Each structure stands twice: as C-alpha cells, then as structure tokens.
C-alpha cells in the first residue's frame, strides 16, 4: 500500500513536472470564436484553482464529419457538436461514452441554444422576409450540406417545419417546399463556416440560412452596412450538446478536467461568454441581460415536430433518405 501511494505521488509529481495537461475539444464549424473565449477563461480559472497549466486544442468542422473523425480515432477528450444525434453516433458506433450521456449535464447537455435565421445583403434587395421567399425563382440560397454539417440539418428541418405549419402538416407539401428550396442552392459547403465564407467573402447568393450566432458574427465582421439579419416568422430551437468522451479522457487521464470544462459552460462566466458570442444562454439571469440582443421568434423543437433526432436522421439524412431523394446536384 505504501509503495503504491509512493508510486502514485511519484507519477503525479512527474506528470505535473512534465508540464501542461492537454485537452482536445472536437467541435462543430462555427464555434471557433466562442471556444477561443471560453478556453481562455477556463484555462485561467483552472490554473487559479489547481495550479495546473492547461492547453486546450480545438478541432472544427461539419458536425457529422467531426463525429465520424472521432469514431475513426480522433482523440477527443470532449465533443461539443451541433446536434445530439452526432454524439449518439459516437456512443453507439465507437462505444466511447455511455448511451445515456445526454442526461449527465443539465438541459440535455446543451449549455446554450441557438436558432436559424437569414443573412441577406444590406437593404435586402431581394425582399426576403420569410421561408417562402427562399423558394422564389431566381433567389440563390446558401446553406451547407446536411450530410456533413449539423447546422445544415437544423436549416433543413427548420424549413420543413415551417412548411408543415403552412400546410397543416402536409408532408407532401413540405417535401415539395424543401425540394424547391434546394433547387435554389448553387453551392453546398461541408460546414456552416464554409457556407458563411461562400456568402460573405465570395459574395455568392442572395440569402444565407445561418446559425443565429454566425449571422451576428458575419455582420460584426463585414459591417452593418453590408449585411443584415432577417428573422423568419418561425424557426427551430437548436440545442447543440456537449459531452466528455469517457474512454478517451480516461486513457489521457483528463476525465476530471474535461468534466470541469463542460461544467464551466453552465457557470455564470461561461453563460456570459456564450451570450457575448451570440449563443442564447440557458441561464435566466444572463438571458434577461441579453434579451434585446436576440430577435424574438416562434421556435419549435425537433422533438415536437419530428419526434426526435433519431427519427429525423433516419427519415431525412440517412443514405437514401429524403434529402438524397430531393437533392440532385448539377440538376
């Protein structure tokens, strides 16, 4: 026993002496700025609390692609992806975390929410007000590929949900509506950030269907004189979840710090950072403080309209699903 304790102290001292603890956060495309700020704040807090230097690396990409990378071996200590289905896939296909991962943190492991809005050129020359304007002939719509991007799947479901509302839940009409929308899509980027690049930097398209936070960031970056945000009449409540990848964190010895990192997202400081980066905070206090920042629109959830992500994924985005049937590239 004594020898074991001595060995543990020796190993612990050696690891501390060896330098910093490293954490890899595999995230979806548009969260770069958010986690830059989160990481800086958490590293400072962790150092003050434990005296340990922490280095957090980030990986960003389309949520679906990122999940596949983790399944294929990317050593993520935590995943902060666009939708629960992608983390479910990691749990089911690679067994890297338990299937009940979503119940381990508050609010179904979603420390912040977002929604889907439109970004248009300043002055809204094409007079885009709502979803039905996106299917008008001659309108060019930018949205990423739902096969690779979590944001794109939120976009798709938001459009489908709108169409169901307009047609008294007529699935055929909803399918026709979304098919017409994708006929107006000239470029399918792999992720939300790529779609923003296409619209903002390359100047392609009349409207970008975007994460709300992406829309705000683009306006801030390019200028309010170049772009404006249009909130549709109805949209989807996007709940991007976060999780510790248990087996990888255990192997790296980072389980404790990974848990603390994700819990930080729910802290007042974490919620403030989220709100400042245009993510809708869960904290009522912080939400009230930033209430004027976010447009007020009617939101529906995936559970309410589609019966959950498992059903939505299977019906719309799996191989041979509705998206494969309605989207014909080079049509």
């Amino acid at each position: 026993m004594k020898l074991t304790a001595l060995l543990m102290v020796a190993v612990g001292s050696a690891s501390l002496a060896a330098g910093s603890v490293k954490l890899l956060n595999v995230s979806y495309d548009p969260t770069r700025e958010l986690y830059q700020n989160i990481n800086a704040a958490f590293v400072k807090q962790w150092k003050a609390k434990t005296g340990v230097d922490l280095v957090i690396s980030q990986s960003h990409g389309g949520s679906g692609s990122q999940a596949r990378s983790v399944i294929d071996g990317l050593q993520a200590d935590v995943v902060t992806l666009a939708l629960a289905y992608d983390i479910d896939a990691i749990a089911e296909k690679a067994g890297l975390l338990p299937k009940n991962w979503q119940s381990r943190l508050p609010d179904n492991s979603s420390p912040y929410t977002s929604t889907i809005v439109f970004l248009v050129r300043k002055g809204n020359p094409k007079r885009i007000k709502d979803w039905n304007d996106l299917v008008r002939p001659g309108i060019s719509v930018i949205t990423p590929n739902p096969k690779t991007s979590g944001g794109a799947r939120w976009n798709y479901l938001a459009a489908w949900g709108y169409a169901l509302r307009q047609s008294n839940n007529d699935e055929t009409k909803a399918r026709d509506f979304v098919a017409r929308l994708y006929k107006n899509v000239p470029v399918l980027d792999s992720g939300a950030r790529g779609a923003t690049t296409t619209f903002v930097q390359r100047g392609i398209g009349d409207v970008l269907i975007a994460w709300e936070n992406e829309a705000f960031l683009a306006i801030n970056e390019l200028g309010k004189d170049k772009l404006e945000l249009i909130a549709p009449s109805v949209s989807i409540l996007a709940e991007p979840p976060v999780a510790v990848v248990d087996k990888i964190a255990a192997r790296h010895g980072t389980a404790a710090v990974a848990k603390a990192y994700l819990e930080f997202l729910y802290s007042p400081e974490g919620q403030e950072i989220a709100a400042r980066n245009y993510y809708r905070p869960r904290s009522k206090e912080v939400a009230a403080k930033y209430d004027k920042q976010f447009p007020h629109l009617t939101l529906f959830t995936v559970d309410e309209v589609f019966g959950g992500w498992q059903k939505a994924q299977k019906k719309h985005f799996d191989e041979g699903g509705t998206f494969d049937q309605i989207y014909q590239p080079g049509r």
Partner: protein
Amino acid sequence: MSRQPKLLIGLAFILGMPSMPARAQSTDQKIEDLEQKVEQLDQEVKVAERNKELQDADAASQAQNAASVTADTGGFTIKSNDGDFLLKIGADLQVDNRAYVGDGAAAGADTILLRRVRPTFSGSVYKFVDFFFRPDFGLGSTVIYDAYLELKYVSAAKVRVGKFKPPVGLERLQSDDDTSFVERGLPTLLVPSRDIGYQISGDAVPQLVNYAVGVFNGVPDNGLGDVAVSSHRDYTARLFLTPFSSAAKNPLSGLGFGSGISGGGVDGIALPAYKTFGQTTFFTFASGVTSAGHRTRLTPQGYYYLGPFGLLSEYTLTEEGFKKGLVQKDIAFRAWQVAATWILTGEKKSFASPTPRKSFDPHNHGWGAVELAARVGDFSAEKGIYNYGFASSNTSPRHAHEVVGGVNWYLNRLVRISVDYGNTNFGGGAVLGNRLSERVLIARFQINFI
C-alpha cells in the same frame, strides 16, 4: 404664317413628343437588363469558382488520406496514408533444368521443372502487427510454406505465431532466393524446414546479440507439417552474435556466429528421407522403423563477409530415437559444410543477395553482378543405424560427401541465373560397395520480388 401651316406644325410637334421619352425608357430598360445579366453572370462565375474551390479542397483532403500504391524491387505495395496499414505482394519463381551425368545418372531423370512458385502476401496492420503468407505451387503440388503473424510491440521480444522456419539451421533461415547455391547443403537435411508454433525473438543487445526461442509441433528433418502428431513438442532456441557489426570499418564487422538447439519427443513423427544436391533420395529408413523417444539437435553455425568475399559454415549434430520391433535406440547424424563465395564484379557480399552496381543492360554497358561459389559438405549416420536394422546398407548409404561449384549471375536486384555442378560420393548404399556417385548440372532462372 397662315393658320393651316401653324396647325400642321403644332400637330407634328404634338405627335413627335411621346417618341422621345419612349426611346429613353427602352434604353434604360436595356441597361437594367444588361446589369441584371452581368450580375447573373458574375454570380455564375463565382459559383463555379467556389464549387471548384470546394472540389479541390475535397480532393486534397482525400489525397492526404488516400493510400499510396507503389511498384518497385520490393514488390507491389499498398500503404495507408498514416502508415498503419501495409500490404506487399511479391513472388518467387524458380525454373530449374537438371541434367544428371555419369554413372549415377540413372538415379535421377533429366528434367526442367518449376522448383518454386511462391506468391507472397505480407504486410502490417496498425504498425505493430506483421503478417506473412506464402504458398508454393512448384513441383506440381500446393503447399502452404509460411503463414504467420508477428507482434512487434516490443522490438526486443517479437512474438511470432503460425507456420514458419524454426530457429535452428543457419542456411535454412536464409531466404530461398538468397542462398548462394541452387540447393542447400547437407547440414540443412537435418533441421526442420517449416513448423507450426510460437516464437519470441529479437535483439537482446541491438546489433550484437540476436535470440529466438520457440515451441513447435515437431516435424521430420528437412520437413514441414501442419498438425501435431502427438502431444510432444519440439523446443528450439538460437543465439547468434555479431560482435563487430556496428563497427563498419572493422574487418570483422561481417562476422556472425552462434548456435541453434532443439529438443523434443518424436513419437509419431514421420521418418525423414534425405536427398542429394540433385534432389534424389539417397537415404531411407527400413520398413517397420518408427521414430520413438527423443530428438536433440545442436547446430553451431557462422558466417563471415568481407567485401566481395563470403564464407558460411555450419555443423549439425542430431541424435534421434528410432524403434523397430522391440529395439529402440538413439542414432546420431552429423553433417557439416563450408561454403565460400566471391563476387567477381566487386559488390559487397552479405547474408542476402547482392544488388548489382549496374543492372544488366548491354546497351548501357551494364552487366549485372557475377559471383563464384564453392562448397564442400559431409553427411554421416552412426553405424548403429545398420546394426539395429533401422536402414539397409544395400540401399541407404550412411555417408555422403559433396562438392559443389557454381556461378551466379545477378542481372539486377530481382533476377538471377545460376549454374551449379554438384558431385556427391557415398559410403555404402549398394549391394556391392558404394552407391554410384551423383553428378548433376543444375541451371536456374529465378525472379524474386518481396
């Protein structure tokens, strides 16, 4: 002016007035249409550029992750981008022409044959697990010669499992395409060819001490097998030293020496039949004889290479139990050889085949590498083999002595033409005196890439 012309002028003016704004409107419309067209074309160009950009990014990502395929002297290789997976496809093809001469020619028929036809599949998975599979379709039969995997997580203790050469004889461990003669020497008759088992091996001291220990099913001398015939096992070990290999300028850097040892029960193991250089069987056991008891082998061995010169020597002593009727005895067999080679074209000789400085290409004055080789060897069984009735002195000589000389022409790294002449004299093995000597000329055409 009269009133009528004024009226006409006024009328003309009034009628002319609307056409001026109409022309202006048409021009504005055209300009607007053109602007829209330009904007549309601009968008189409941007879309095309962006799609190309995304395709290029996708292609670059795929290329980065794509496996590489190469074809070179090492065979055909498919390797994953991260190096975790490797597959090599190679082959070994040997075509021999055997011509027996002299009085002993009747023992063997002149023939052209496929001596070895061995495709090879080897590679690694996850960097630390090697696999090797080699069947042989030569001599009109299909045999799996090698099939094993090797775990290399600890380089000093690699674990090999499957069918492979047990670590006993030096020349046996040499690859078939690297031996200096078309057929191996007499000591190799007494060591196993292939056996199924486990082995741990590695460099106990890098570049100095190599070891191997293993446990196998047990096979006849110079034989191979696929299943154990009893619960007895053959235990092997080999230690080989290359004490000066790290000192490149040291004249002894090419010296290696060591020994193999094996021991185990032989009950049920088939009896061997020993063959000459010309591959004719010169020794068989008498009817009713079985292996019984124990077999022990000791194989001191060594080589020395200095520039184009090579020397290889080994001695095999084996003691094996046999039984006929109620008589069970241990019989000792001994064999040795000394083989010397000299590469006339000056390439460095080693345990592996030399690589010609210039491949054979007469158009560019390239002639490949030419090597002279000579060996002497001896095989003997103790006299008791006749006394106990285990073999007949009328048919199985208990002594054979061979002298072999040859020329190897390495056209390039992969192709070799060899011509060997072997003379084997026997002691015993005939009703009156000795079995007739064997004199045989063997030419071989060989291609090997692995």
